[in-house]
């Protein structure tokens, strides 16, 4: 009989008990004897966490170490959370169903700011003190990583260690150091200090931040023996590294219910709003032959009926045509669907899509991000109106009738004309359809769905100094776009959606926050904030109270333009891309000056210092 941490009574009283039982295909079970026990956590619901490739890579890598048993843990949904709190049931890992509090490591991935209260839920249910400095010798070492770790400061107090960069490189060193610490029974403090000297690993408690009267940072000082700069870790070759060819297959439908093939990491494009494009530089591709082998193994080992390419911009993968043709030849008569997200819409991609999808059902997607060319120059989005209209023209002639457009509102230097251009661009695409396709050949109306999200400035982008809009400004801007939409000739063919402004503002606070925000997070959690990324559970009022009660002004963090000389909370991290380059780009943005992509011309961002990837090869 397999061991379960929760009783039958509890499992049958909660929604989707399969979230909590483990035992999935390809889940790794080991003999716990003499193993370093690592609990890897995605602090959101099972269905979300199970869809994440990064965790799958780390799970595969850590379990490939004979002396480590890595297990998974996710946030528990509100129904089970209430039961576990009431009955004082500790949080457990899925594989062994053992308590997280008894593990050696608890690793938490930070994928988005709005999961920060969920981190506290995980610690709370595991019986681990929130603040790293309150933890005892026997508590697990709590470590985080992922994109939000590029500014770990708002949550730095909760972590013993922060891993900056790609996880494939330094975990072995960390495990070895931990084993040494266990063997020689050194103190936790001593271990953490040594760990903080491993490449890419930051131990926040050995750094001291002081502030000026105006609230800005006065100094950020490392204790003796600790590095003053943490350089992000990256994998040199994506071809010769870990890749999970036997990923865990969930029983219930995960958000990404398919095999995922990561074709490259990094991006050649320099969109000025995009953090991923900056922190994952330089671009590195995985060898096409290697991908073919991985794809075959993954399908064989999982039985998935769908495989998807993953990268920031698949169209920039040099052997895209080969890998697409391979997938079609290998899988199309074996009933494996092929999904190709983030492809530029052109003759090639439309041809591929025709082969792998039902044209009637599929949607053509563009992310112009801004409505006007002027604004696209500001953000350095190298997509022109001609690219969009040519793509749409070919798509409409090929039988497609549905177009999705993604935009941002609240970008720096945005004017009312730029906002209205979102509506005129949407209209122009609809008009193109009606001009192009004769009445008798049309199958109903063309459908244009335009969505706007609110721009949140992120660390390590040229807009890291920019002032973010207030909630009222955002709402006004959405209103401007909505009104402009209604004035369009083809407005009946266009649907306009916009995001909630309150969540965006919170995201803005935590994205560029500092250590003084940890107490806000604790207070908000105490007030019941949890699953803030979910519309059904998000409430803004308790957050407002939490800011007021802790005396923290959110506007200081999001609604303020920073001087480029100001010490930023994340300045101690070196991502390869230099501050000088970011300042240059911030100025270029203001001057509406386009910077060529990495393949057109090197702009000297600094990432070439890593000596890997395309910067190195070309």
């Amino acid at each position: 009989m397999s061991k379960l941490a929760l009783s039958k009574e509890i499992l049958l009283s909660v929604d989707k008990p399969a979230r909590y039982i483990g035992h999935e295909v390809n889940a790794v079970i080991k003999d716990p004897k003499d193993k370093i026990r690592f609990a890897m956590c995605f602090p959101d619901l099972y269905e979300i966490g199970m869809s994440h490739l990064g965790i799958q890579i780390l799970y595969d890598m850590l379990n490939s170490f004979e002396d480590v048993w890595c297990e998974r843990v996710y946030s528990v949904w509100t129904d089970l959370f209430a039961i576990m709190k009431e009955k004082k049931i500790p949080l457990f890992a899925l594989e062994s169903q053992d308590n997280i509090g008894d593990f050696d490591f608890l690793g938490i991935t930070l994928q988005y700011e709005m999961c920060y209260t969920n981190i506290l839920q995980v610690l709370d249910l595991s019986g681990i003190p929130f603040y790293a400095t309150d933890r005892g010798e026997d508590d697990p070492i709590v470590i985080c990583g992922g994109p939000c770790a590029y500014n770990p400061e708002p949550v730095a107090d909760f972590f013993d260690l922060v891993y900056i960069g790609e996880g494939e490189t330094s975990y072995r060193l960390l495990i070895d150091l931990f084993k040494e610490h266990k063997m020689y029974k050194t103190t936790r403090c001593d271990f953490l200090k040594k760990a903080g000297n491993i490449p890419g690993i930051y131990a926040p408690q050995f750094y001291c931040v002081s502030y000026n009267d105006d609230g800005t940072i006065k100094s950020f000082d490392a204790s003796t023996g600790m590095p003053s700069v943490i350089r992000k870790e990256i994998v040199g070759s994506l071809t010769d590294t870990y890749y999970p060819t036997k990923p865990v297959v969930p029983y219930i439908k995960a958000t990404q219910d398919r095999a995922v093939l990561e074709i490259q990491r990094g991006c050649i494009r320099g969109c000025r709003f995009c953090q991923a494009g900056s922190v994952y530089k330089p671009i590195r591709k995985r060898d096409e032959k290697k991908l073919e082998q991985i794809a075959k193994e993954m399908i064989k080992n999982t039985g998935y009926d769908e495989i998807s390419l993953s990268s920031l911009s698949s169209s920039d993968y040099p052997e895209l045509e080969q890998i697409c043709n391979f997938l079609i030849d290998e899988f199309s008569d074996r009933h494996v669907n092929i999904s190709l997200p983030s492809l530029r819409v052109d003759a090639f991609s439309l041809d591929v899509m025709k082969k792998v999808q039902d044209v009637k059902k599929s949607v053509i997607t563009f992310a112009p991000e801004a409505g006007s060319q002027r604004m696209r120059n500001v953000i350095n989005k190298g997509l022109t109106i001609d690219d969009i209209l040519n793509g749409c023209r070919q798509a409409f002639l090929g039988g497609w009738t549905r177009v999705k457009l993604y935009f941002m509102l609240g970008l720096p230097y945005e004017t009312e004309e730029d906002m209205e251009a979102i509506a005129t661009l949407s209209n122009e695409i609809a008009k193109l359809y009606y001009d192009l396709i004769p009445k008798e050949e049309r199958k109903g109306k063309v459908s244009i769905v335009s969505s706007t999200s609110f721009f949140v400035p992120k660390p390590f982008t040229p807009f890291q100094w920019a002032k973010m809009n207030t909630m009222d400004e955002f709402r006004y801007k959405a209103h401007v776009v909505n009104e402009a939409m209604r004035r369009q000739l083809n407005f009946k063919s266009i649907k306009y959606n916009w995001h909630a402004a309150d969540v965006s503002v919170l995201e803005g606070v935590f994205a560029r926050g500092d250590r003084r925000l940890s107490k806000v997070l604790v207070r908000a959690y105490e007030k019941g904030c949890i699953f803030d990324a979910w519309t059904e559970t998000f409430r803004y009022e308790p957050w407002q109270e939490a800011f007021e009660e802790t005396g923290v002004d959110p506007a200081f963090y999001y609604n303020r333009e920073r001087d480029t000389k100001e010490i930023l909370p994340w300045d101690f991290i070196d991502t390869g891309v230099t501050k000088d380059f970011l300042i240059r780009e911030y100025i270029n943005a203001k001057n509406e000056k386009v910077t060529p992509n990495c393949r057109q011309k090197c702009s000297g961002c600094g990432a070439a210092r890593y000596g890997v990837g395309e910067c190195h090869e070309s």
Partner: protein
Amino acid sequence: MKVRIRFSKTGALVYIGHLDVMRYFQKLFVRSGIPVAYSEGFSPHQLLSFTPPLPLGMESTGEYADVVLTNSITTKEAIMHLRKHSVDGIYISSFRALPEKCENAMAAVKAASYSVKFCKKPSEDINMLISGLLSKEAMMVTKKSKKSERMINIRPLIHELTYEDDTVNMMISSGSIDNIKPELVINALFEASQKSYTSQDLLIKRIDQYTLIEDKLISLDLIGSNIDG
């Protein structure tokens, strides 16, 4: 060619719902290299049929899936591959070729057998209660569904009812026409003492499922034959 697979669902797997079990088998067939046939059309799916859903939380040793194959594969080979690629809680016990024009698993089921244990052993003489119930010609009970409540006579729907080693064993009607739950029979037994049991108070296990052939209830597992090399 169509085959019928018998499997058990135990341990942690009892918390996996019916639709997820179907999805599990779709992937299991691919991993095991079973030559499953797909439907035509733009979104083809495996030609697959299951016996009626097992309630969440209930174990079973008698679940069935019928599947159409494009090529033949021996029973021995198929079982070996399926077991190798399955998880602990889903155990494949048979793989048999079905005769032509055989009802699919879902439609074929007319009865199911269950074993029922009590979480708290009742003080009543259960053998007495059983003979009392079986001696009646009619036993009217209220059957509640999500939408309605109605009186039905369950006596003709009870085909076997015994008590041994603290366990009630029963074979009762199941499937699309006359479907009753084992809890309903247990509550009918205790009607006089006005006790009411829910699935939480009982440990119920589905043992097997049966079809009706020439007025006889026959295990779904006995239809068809093994495939030899």
